[in-house]
């Protein structure tokens, strides 16, 4: 921690949050909100006079609320930076008449109640997301009585009570009477490995070994304490872990295989009675403990959503950030130039966090050292000859990568290639069809549709899948061997935003029984909000199909994430069921109707282009 504070190449922003991120790999523009501390950290010499006179005491979050701190405080003795700040929600000093005591005693005049937040702009080439986890709140496990019984504590609270720097200076006591407990029960898997609505289905990874550690600390400090661990499995899988587990058992810690169903308090002694089945013997036991420690799991950061949106990150079903590939790119985010370190990606212990941090730093370092990055050649090219300067392309671009046209000055829309990510929404929305996507051109996609529907199209489901969510979702169905009917034919686009209405109609005109447009869930869209344009487009298309007398159900829209292989398979099964309801007559009818529609559109474009051409020739003559 100290090393960070004094490193010449690390600029530390504490009490700060990233507010905006724009740009792309190698070229991120970031703004950071540096929240006011109200204490000038450069002038403060940590004399502590201010704390002594501050009249406001609030629970100290660092000590898990077991002790209090003042409204002006240092978070903990070893804090970096080593300086004070004022908790303005608690402070009276906004109004010097009410208080102002700390400012009065501060000889260095570091205190400024009117300090304002600062917005700092930064330019960076790579971003490492190390936003960590939160500890699971066991309140919903009412059977353990965490909020009702004072002597039921969490593993984090245990840490503070056993720590020499804790509220009791390391004298281990229980909250109700500040007496040293002689019997301590640990309940494992609180909030983890749960298939009930309470808690989370995943294993939190750290709680088994943390409890083993806690029992050894107790045995070391107080050999007379009897510890019992109630568990379902002890997962001592890492280097040195089994050894530690064995040491704990050798120290006399009792491991009982069975999670308690119930904990109640004896109102007189404030002791706790645990009801548990020893699953090794099948016996139901009632055991009395002086203190219960709940080995709480960890959960994804609940305010991580902000970072997620800023950097276009995806989450797996359990809410942790999803890596680009579990084996090949385990610390890369799917967004280029963004890497993960620590628990933000999944719960892990200190050693694994440090290991992953090293890997993330190395990956980011490669990018920074290389000094240049190539942009995939999937950007749009605008043919301005028949562009009407309507500006829709610029309006729908999620990245602002198209400079809007200006009909008065005659300026045409212009693609800023480095800012474009290639979603293709502009090309799909262009009413004049003058935008060509490189490597995902109309001709290429229509060629794929024709080839896929050449033979027995009436038996097929033509499915468009986006590169980041639905297509890898289909891949995951494969990896999981989730079976589904073999009638679907996938066409990959970078984003569902690329799926032009004409592609869908073309597939129906070629006789496809069903068409699916699939993309990322709204919160996961890799092109910020391009998927919202997909949705608007499909909703409009459903109305149009209805007007044309084509059953709108033949076009389906689904949001399938890269983690939803099972969903992909079940969507395919459902589409197969719908496919069977489509009659040969309606397929034929749709083919005729749509052929006429395409002819009408071609005629409209021909006429409009001819008009534009003659208008232009006229202008040229006028100028001449």
């Amino acid at each position, binding site marked *: *921690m100290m090393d960070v504070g004094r*490193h010449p*190449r690390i*600029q*530390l*922003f*504490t009490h*700060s949050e990233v507010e905006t991120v724009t740009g792309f790999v*190698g*070229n*991120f523009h970031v703004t*950071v909100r540096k929240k006011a501390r109200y204490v000038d950290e450069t002038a403060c010499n940590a004399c502590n006079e201010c704390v002594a006179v501050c009249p406001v005491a609030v629970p100290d979050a660092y000590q898990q609320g077991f002790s209090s701190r003042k409204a002006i405080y240092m*978070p903990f003795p070893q804090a*970096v930076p080593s300086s004070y700040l004022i908790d303005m929600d608690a402070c009276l000093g906004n109004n010097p008449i009410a208080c102002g005591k700390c400012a009065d005693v501060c000889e260095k005049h570091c205190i400024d109640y009117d300090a304002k937040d600062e917005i700092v702009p930064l330019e960076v080439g*790579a*971003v*490492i997301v*190390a936003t960590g986890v939160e500890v699971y709140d066991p309140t919903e496990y009412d059977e353990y009585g965490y909020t009702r019984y004072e002597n039921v504590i969490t593993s*984090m609270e245990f*840490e*503070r009570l056993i720590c*020499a720097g804790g509220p009791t200076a390391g004298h281990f006591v229980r909250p109700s009477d500040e007496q040293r407990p002689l019997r301590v029960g640990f309940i494992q898997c609180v909030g983890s490995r749960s298939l009930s609505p309470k808690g989370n289905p995943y294993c939190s990874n750290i709680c088994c070994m943390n409890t083993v*550690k806690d029992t050894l*600390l107790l045995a070391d400090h107080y050999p007379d304490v009897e510890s019992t661990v109630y568990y379902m499995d002890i997962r001592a899988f890492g280097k*040195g872990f089994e050894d530690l587990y064995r040491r704990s058992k050798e120290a006399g810690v009792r491991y009982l295989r069975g999670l308690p169903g119930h904990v109640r308090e004896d109102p007189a002694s404030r002791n706790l009675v645990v009801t548990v089945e020893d699953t090794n013997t099948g016996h139901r036991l009632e055991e009395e403990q002086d203190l219960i420690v709940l080995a709480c799991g960890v959960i994804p950061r609940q305010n991580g959503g902000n970072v997620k949106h800023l950097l276009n990150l995806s989450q797996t079903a359990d809410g942790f950030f999803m890596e680009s*590939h579990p084996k*090949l790119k385990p610390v890369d985010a799917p967004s280029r130039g963004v890497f993960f*370190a*620590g628990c*933000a990606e999944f719960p892990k*212990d*200190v050693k694994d966090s*440090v290991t992953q*941090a*090293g890997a993330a*730093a*190395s990956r*980011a*370092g490669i*990018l*920074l050292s290389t*000094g*240049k990055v*190539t*942009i995939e*050649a999937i950007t749009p090219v605008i043919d301005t000859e028949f562009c009407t300067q309507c500006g829709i392309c610029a309006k729908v671009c999620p990245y602002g990568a198209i400079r809007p046209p200006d009909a008065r000055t005659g300026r045409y829309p212009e693609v800023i290639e480095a800012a474009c990510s290639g979603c293709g929404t502009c090309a799909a929305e262009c009413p004049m069809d003058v935008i060509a996507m490189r490597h995902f*051109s109309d001709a*290429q996609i229509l*060629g794929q549709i*024709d*080839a896929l529907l050449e033979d027995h199209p009436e038996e097929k489901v033509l499915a468009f899948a986006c590169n980041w969510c639905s*297509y*890898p979702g289909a*891949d995951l169905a494969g*990896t999981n061997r989730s079976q*589904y*009917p*073999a009638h679907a*034919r*996938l066409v990959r686009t970078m984003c569902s935003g690329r799926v032009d209405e004409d592609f869908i109609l073309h597939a129906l005109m070629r006789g496809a029984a069903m068409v699916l447009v699939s993309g990322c869930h709204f919160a996961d869209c890799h092109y910020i909000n391009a998927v919202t344009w997909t949705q608007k487009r499909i909703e409009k298309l459903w109305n149009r199909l209805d007007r044309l007398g084509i059953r709108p159900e033949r076009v389906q829209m689904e949001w399938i994430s890269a983690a939803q292989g099972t969903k992909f398979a079940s969507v395919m099964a459902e589409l197969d069921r719908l496919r069977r309801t489509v009659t040969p007559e309606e397929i034929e009818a749709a083919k005729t109707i749509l052929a006429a529609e395409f002819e009408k559109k071609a005629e409209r474009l021909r006429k409009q282009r001819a008009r534009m051409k003659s208008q232009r020739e006229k202008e040229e003559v006028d100028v001449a």
Partner: protein
Amino acid sequence: MATPHNLRVGVFVCECGRNIAGTVDCGAVSDFAATLPDVVVVKQNKYTCADPGQMEIRNAIAEHKLNRVVVASCTPKIHEPTFRNCVREAGLNPYLLEMANIREHVSWVHQDDPAGATRKAKDLVASAVARARKLEPQVEAEVPVTKAALVIGGGVAGIQAALDLADAGHQVYLVEKEPSIGGIMAALDKTYPTMDCSI
């Protein structure tokens, strides 16, 4: 839109050991591929991604003057970079490669319907060839990288990442929401398995 008139497509069908060939009739897919327009050579391989498989692609590009390559194997999410490099080494623009995903999207998900799986694999190869015939060489733009990193979060992972990058000579900005760095680790007494101090 300079589509050459002398299109020469090579199709490489991968068996992926038994992963694909266990369900899909790869021979039938290869025979079918040979009937597709502009396809001048079809090769079937046990593992196209392995060195001998890649060597076969490079040799075929030279021998048959291929200007489009279709690999029917696994998902492009895994091996598109592999095969793009492979065709680049043989002198082709990497954007002239196309893949047909006949493993994740076919053999692994239609194990109980080999006939349906083979039909689908043929369709996907036809689709890839159709697309390949319309592919054009592309040039990737290069942009410079700002030589600085942002680390969001100052727990043990953020601290380590920031130190490593800074020690490697890069400018680092470490942003922490709380008034001090340290995160959850700073609130622990000791850490396992060494039972040493957390701070």
